């Protein structure tokens, strides 16, 4: 495992300077995009560019200082990637606000709200890093966080605070704020899965029967996967939320596979998922509709419910072409929910395929860094946590961007860090904080490394020096 690296004498460097440099580039993206929106839509650089840029820079620098102080060995690429995506997202949301305002819509302060949520997200990022000095502490909270996660998922069904929006029970309303508890639940569920799987992996991995070169698990070990399948189906049927259902089940499958190293689980899970999807297709009209809109989007453009939204997104992205129309030159406001689920279409229309590819690559890099952290992490719990978070980002990005670009049927999910949405933004910042924490732990030189030195004196001095 990862010890081989240290045995060969490789020690990770801190690379905080590199992180700072990359963060500056990320700020150029965020503030530059904001200035470009002003130039493109209103013809001048926004008057509040200094205040806005200063605020964004302050947030980013604060996060950087926190990392420097409490996680000095952390992966240097994650934070800049996230800062760039968040900054770009803010600029695009601001651009849509201007369009909504011009069209006379009531709600055109999404960007301001998103900046507030980003501030909260960065504060939580710092708080997580400061308060949680070792991610293994979380292993103690396996069942607590599991229960809390399920409880959060059920919150929208409660009277008074719960409620449905667009047919889905995923929102709660408290004191004028709306919140998607599912976004936080997914972080808690990753912790719960990791804690559970790291304890039970041997039982799940070793027993079983071999059928056609594949080790299938024992019947009695199917409990957890069936439970998780049940939860996913519950989300699908009760909350009417196809995206989250897919995300939770996929996440669990990946973590189960990594923990047990047995592809058999993927087969069992895949079969279960296929059966579930078929059942959903047969019995839930909504799913059938989405499938039809995906296969024949152009035929349902004018019907209701219809494919107006995805087709407008396709028109917009095609209209954007290779380099995009430029901020202010497109009509992304024609796409319903362009600021949240469809933000990648708004980016495609005005910034082009180039920007869409850049965004996809940024996500690809986040996933790559997270999986790399999983590879070099020294403890099973850390590995599983990192794999879990990597899968959340990968699945969510694939489901959303794939849905918007017509690769797969559409399911409603937010695009991490880009889309408008406080719950999602805050939860994703916490995910990055946890990844940073795990990576700091994984990349930190091992104190015991000096054990190979036979000189007992030097060992004692080493112990003193490192405390």
């Amino acid at each position, binding site marked *: 495992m990862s010890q081989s690296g240290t045995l060969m004498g490789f020690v990770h460097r801190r690379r905080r300077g590199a992180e700072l440099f990359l963060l500056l580039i990320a700020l150029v993206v965020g503030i530059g995009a904001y200035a470009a929106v002003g130039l493109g839509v209103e013809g001048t650089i926004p008057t509040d560019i200094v205040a806005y840029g200063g605020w964004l820079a302050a947030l980013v620098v604060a996060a950087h200082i926190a990392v420097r102080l409490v996680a000095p060995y952390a992966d240097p690429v994650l934070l800049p990637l996230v800062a760039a995506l968040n900054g770009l997202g803010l600029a695009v949301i601001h651009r849509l606000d201007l369009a909504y305002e011009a069209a006379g819509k009531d709600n055109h302060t999404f960007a301001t709200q998103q900046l507030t949520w980003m501030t909260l997200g960065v504060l939580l990022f710092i708080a997580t890093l400061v308060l949680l000095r070792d991610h293994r502490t979380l292993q103690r909270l396996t069942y607590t966080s599991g229960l809390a996660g399920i409880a959060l998922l059920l919150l929208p069904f409660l009277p008074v605070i719960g409620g449905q929006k667009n047919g889905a029970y995923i929102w709660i309303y408290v004191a004028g704020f709306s919140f998607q508890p599912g976004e936080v639940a997914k972080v808690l569920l990753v912790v719960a899965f990791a804690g559970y799987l790291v304890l039970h992996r041997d039982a799940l991995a070793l027993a079983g029967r071999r059928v056609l070169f594949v080790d299938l698990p024992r019947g009695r070990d199917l409990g957890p996967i069936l439970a998780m399948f049940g939860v996913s189906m519950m989300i699908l049927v009760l909350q009417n939320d196809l995206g989250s259902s897919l995300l939770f089940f996929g996440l669990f499958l990946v973590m189960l596979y990594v923990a047990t190293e047995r592809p058999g689980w993927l087969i069992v899970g895949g079969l279960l998922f296929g059966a579930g999807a078929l059942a959903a297709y047969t019995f839930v009209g909504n799913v059938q509709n989405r499938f039809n809109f995906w296969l024949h989007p152009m035929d349902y453009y004018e019907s209701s419910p219809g494919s107006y939204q995805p087709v407008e997104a*396709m028109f917009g992205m095609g*209209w954007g072409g290779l380099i995009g129309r430029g901020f202010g030159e497109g009509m992304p406001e024609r796409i319903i929910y362009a600021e949240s689920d469809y933000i990648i279409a708004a980016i495609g229309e005005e910034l082009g395929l180039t920007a869409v590819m850049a965004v996809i690559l940024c996500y690809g890099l986040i996933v790559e860094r997270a999986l790399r952290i*999983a590879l070099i992490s020294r403890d099973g719990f850390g590995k599983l946590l990192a*794999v879990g978070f990597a899968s959340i980002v990968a699945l969510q990005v*694939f489901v959303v961007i*794939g849905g918007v670009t017509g690769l797969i049927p559409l399911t409603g999910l937010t695009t991490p860090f880009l889309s408008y949405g406080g719950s999602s933004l805050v939860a994703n910042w916490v995910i990055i904080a946890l990844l940073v924490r795990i990576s700091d732990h994984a990349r930190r030189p091992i104190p015991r490394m000096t054990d190979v030195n036979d000189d007992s004196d030097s060992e004692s001095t080493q112990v003193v020096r490192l405390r």
Partner: protein
Amino acid sequence: MNKPIRTISMFCLLLFAALLLNSTYLMYVRADDLAEDPRNRRVITAAFARERGAILVGKETVARSVEVDDKYKFQRTYAQPFKYAPITGYFSYYSQTGIERSQNDVLSGDDSRLFVTRLVDMLSNTEPQGGNVELTINAAAQDAAWDGLQALPGDAKGAVVALEPSTGKVLAMVSSPTFDPNLLASHDLSDVEDASDQLQDDPANPLINRAIGTTLPPGSTFKLITAAAAIESGNYDQDSLVPGGAKFQLPQSTTKVGNWQGGSCGGNKITLTQALAVSCNVSFLTLANELGTEAMTEQAEAFGFNSTSLEDLPGQASSLYPADMDAPQTALSGIGQSSVTATPLQMAMVAAGIANGGEVKRPYLVDEVRAPNASLLDKTEESTYSRAISSTTADQLTDMMVATVDDGTAGIAAIPGVRVAGKTGTAQSTDSRPPYAWFVSFAPADDPQVAVAVMVEASDTAREEIAGGSLGGPIAKAIMQAVMGS
């Protein structure tokens, strides 16, 4: 646990590669298809908000885009809306017609000849601008044509086409009643829809360009083609004697057809020249009957019947000379009746072909295409549409048409000091409606500069006065004078 993590990494790589490929497919490969979808409002709005090039007649701008302060940025305006509407057409949010449609690529700036301009616009980040289209129209001739039609009593419906015989340039094209394209180019889309509905419901069909879009029996003006076929057959020349009696007995029928005002045309045998000059029905019924369907069809098609020739405007109707007519129909076709129909443009081409020594030039409206910076991108080359008749036939026909003006029915178009060639026409439709009045002419006969066809579909003029070219003649004369004077 690292082995499955590596597998998962590969799987994630596949997912992201799929996203990249699919985005490329959507935004690059399918982009053109999506742009062509008629429901794609982005493309339509962007085209509507573009600074379109101008349509020019000489130094005058008849259509241009003016900058305005609304979301479409540029308002298309037409300086002389009614006079030029049949040519320019309109440019509305929903559709385009006329030159606005046929030259849309140039005017919008999408034409491949404007590629360099577009590239410069893109690099310098300026708004793309369309190229300009210069028409072949002679402003004085167009004015004369328009004023002439407007001066007719009542709500006259009619159309005028003037061609330059040696090139095929359209010097004037007017249709009445017509419409105001400014109403349809408005940025207030509900107004546009109202105006459009109103124009479409108007029984007078103001949206139709009668010069190219309506075909009507050409009447006696078609006798030019019968005469041309007769001379081309080799059996006749301008002095040949033809029957000029009072009645013609239709073949396979008991019906007898007489001349316009009854009586004979000046004798039982008259010269072909005199037959044309007095527009003798009996002579041309006899000739057409004798020449037969095949020769007549061949001659009509050589002048452009049964096909279209003008590429610069959409909506040209093809003039009709049905090849499957029986003997009586063929005889009647010799005087422009039965199923023969023609557009004013077609009859102008007949006159221009005779004027140009028998060679019919392809008519065209777009003279030059220029980039926004006024550099010449393209100039239309004249081209021959067909050789309808030999030059000797053309010379004889010219002499006959001059005689028609000097001593015959078309005297109204005579211009002192200039040899004018002309022919009147009056076509019957039904008894309840007044006949169509036609007039075709060209001048000067020895070096023709202009050929004209005038068609008046209906007016409040008394039935008797329609004959003799009293409606179309003065208009044709004014146009010829305008061209020769400029």
